[in-house]
């Protein structure tokens, strides 16, 4: 065998060599990430966990170790904690579904061949960059129970018992869910990037074979963007559970009215940064919440095996 031939022969590695090779390469690529993890996540997480085992308050000087008392109190006695978790879950699931559908529909619309596509894309990106106070102000204005445009229209259409939107505790959460459905910016961009990866030829072939648009959607589009659907679902759930600024604006910083817009991040903020500034307790609540999100994500990962398809090309 000549030297060249020898070099061209595909190298076959043993399992052991393969394993080490993979591992080595993985480390090489992720080294920085692993260091980052320890520095910026692991260290603060441990410190926050330790904080959650004390009764530390913001101005309180030294604090005492109280073990898991904070955790027990939150689970068994704190009605606001339970309520905020419940409302956060409802909010995350409902608005998540809305946002997922909206962003996918919009991305698909933007992926089509229509004139002035660039202008539309820019316009749809706008809600993303407009600060939340402007968005909040607009919707508070539109949905104002007595002077808002929406209720004016509904009234002139003959509706008698006009909805109270964000002013009534029974409808405020739903109103917030509705408004948050317009937070599709990031997910839309992600979906769009994924849709653009799908080669046009696939659709051409399908069209020639007589497949309907709906069939094309189910058989081509969905499977090809399924990794991105999974990505967005995780993102949307986490986003929905951590949602702060919209609830802060709509709820005047305290779950107004009557604690109906009290999402967990708001409650945690109130506990830590309003009197009596209970940092230790807030840390414990945060950990409990983290466990809940963890559980949900585990479930989503398990489900993802059913619909995510990789390497389809």
């Amino acid at each position: 065998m000549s030297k060249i031939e020898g070099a061209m022969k595909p190298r076959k590695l043993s399992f052991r060599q393969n394993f080490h090779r993979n591992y080595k390469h993985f480390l090489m690529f992720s080294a920085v990430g692993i260091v980052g993890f320890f520095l910026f996540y692991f260290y603060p997480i441990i410190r926050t966990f330790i904080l959650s085992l004390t009764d530390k308050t913001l101005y309180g000087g030294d604090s005492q170790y109280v073990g898991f008392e904070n955790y027990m109190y939150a689970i068994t006695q704190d009605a606001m904690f339970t309520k905020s978790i419940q409302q956060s879950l409802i909010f995350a699931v409902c608005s998540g579904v809305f946002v997922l559908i909206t962003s996918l529909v919009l991305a698909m619309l933007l992926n089509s061949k229509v004139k002035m596509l660039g202008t539309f894309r820019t316009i749809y990106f706008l809600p993303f960059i407009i600060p939340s106070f402007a968005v909040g102000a607009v919707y508070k204005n539109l949905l104002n129970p007595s002077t808002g445009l929406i209720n004016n229209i509904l009234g002139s259409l003959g509706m008698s018992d006009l909805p109270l939107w964000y002013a009534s505790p029974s409808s405020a959460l739903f109103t917030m869910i509705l408004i948050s459905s317009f937070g599709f910016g990031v997910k839309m961009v992600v979906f769009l990037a994924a849709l653009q990866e799908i080669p046009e030829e696939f659709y051409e072939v399908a069209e020639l074979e007589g497949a309907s648009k709906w069939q094309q959607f189910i058989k081509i589009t969905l499977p090809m963007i399924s990794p991105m659907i999974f990505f967005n679902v995780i993102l949307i759930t986490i986003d929905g559970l951590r949602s702060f600024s919209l609830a802060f604006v709509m709820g005047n910083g305290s779950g107004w009215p009557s604690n109906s817009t009290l999402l967990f991040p708001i409650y945690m903020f109130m506990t830590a940064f309003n009197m009596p500034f209970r940092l230790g307790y807030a840390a414990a609540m945060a950990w409990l919440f983290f466990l809940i999100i963890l559980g949900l994500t585990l479930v989503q990962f398990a489900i993802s095996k059913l619909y995510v398809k990789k390497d389809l090309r």
Partner: protein
Amino acid sequence: MAKQAIHLKPYEKTKEAKTRRVFTYILLVLFSLVALLPLYYLIITAMKDLSEASTQATMFPHSFALFDNFRFVFAHPDYTVVRMFLNTMFIFVLKATGTILTCSLAGYGFAMFKFPGKKIIFFALLSTMMIPGELLGVPIYEFMVNTGLKEVAFIPLWIAAWFATDVFVIFLFKQFFETLPKPLIEAARMEGASELSIFFRIALPLNKPAIITVILLYFVGTYNDLYGPALYISDKSNWVMANSITIFENLYQSGSSSYLVPWNYVSVATLIAMMPVVLVFALLQKQFMQSVAGTGIKG
């Protein structure tokens, strides 16, 4: 913006296809109206005078004070908007470069190489995303204060980006890399290329959409971010764009909980602040389409 040439395939010229396109068009316009609503409100609030803007919530302004408002905003001694813009750009460039480099590397590692325990590690990484950021910020802030790095060259605001700390971006790259055609990579390996060179020469360039997505998101994120700067920046000459708006939000702040917010000045400052972002997006999304035209070669 230059008109994009639209190439219609034969099956897209049928009457059926035409009606579908009209329907699409109508939907696009409807959604645009909703998307433009907040912007409309910003613009008309910028036109109102102080009294109307801060005490009423009208959809059609009664007063017109646009030029007075602009004059007031620019005359404010702390409104050094060019300086703030440059500061923000500095932070953005460092953050975006750091993230794209380190997170794409990490995402590639997760996507390409199999070994036991990978799922667990990835899952651990993902779960860190779920921890409320504010809680993590405090120990890091203490660290920055104790090492005296707090005020140096905005370090606390971008240093984390160079350590692949944005799990969202790692996740994004991972998903994209997983859709790369395996045969291409295998062929490169056969030819004896090192993993790193495969990464830089083949995988990364193929993922332009992902990179541009990250750039866009980071630009907007850094631009609008107030939390980081509020924590670390105290000196006025180091202020960022987000501060340009809060100057006016807090103009009449007093001890009580309900102070007067001059929304007209705030809206003017917001509109000025928004302009670069809109420009960047309008420009980049054209490039977005160009890079996409190139990926038609795949598959």
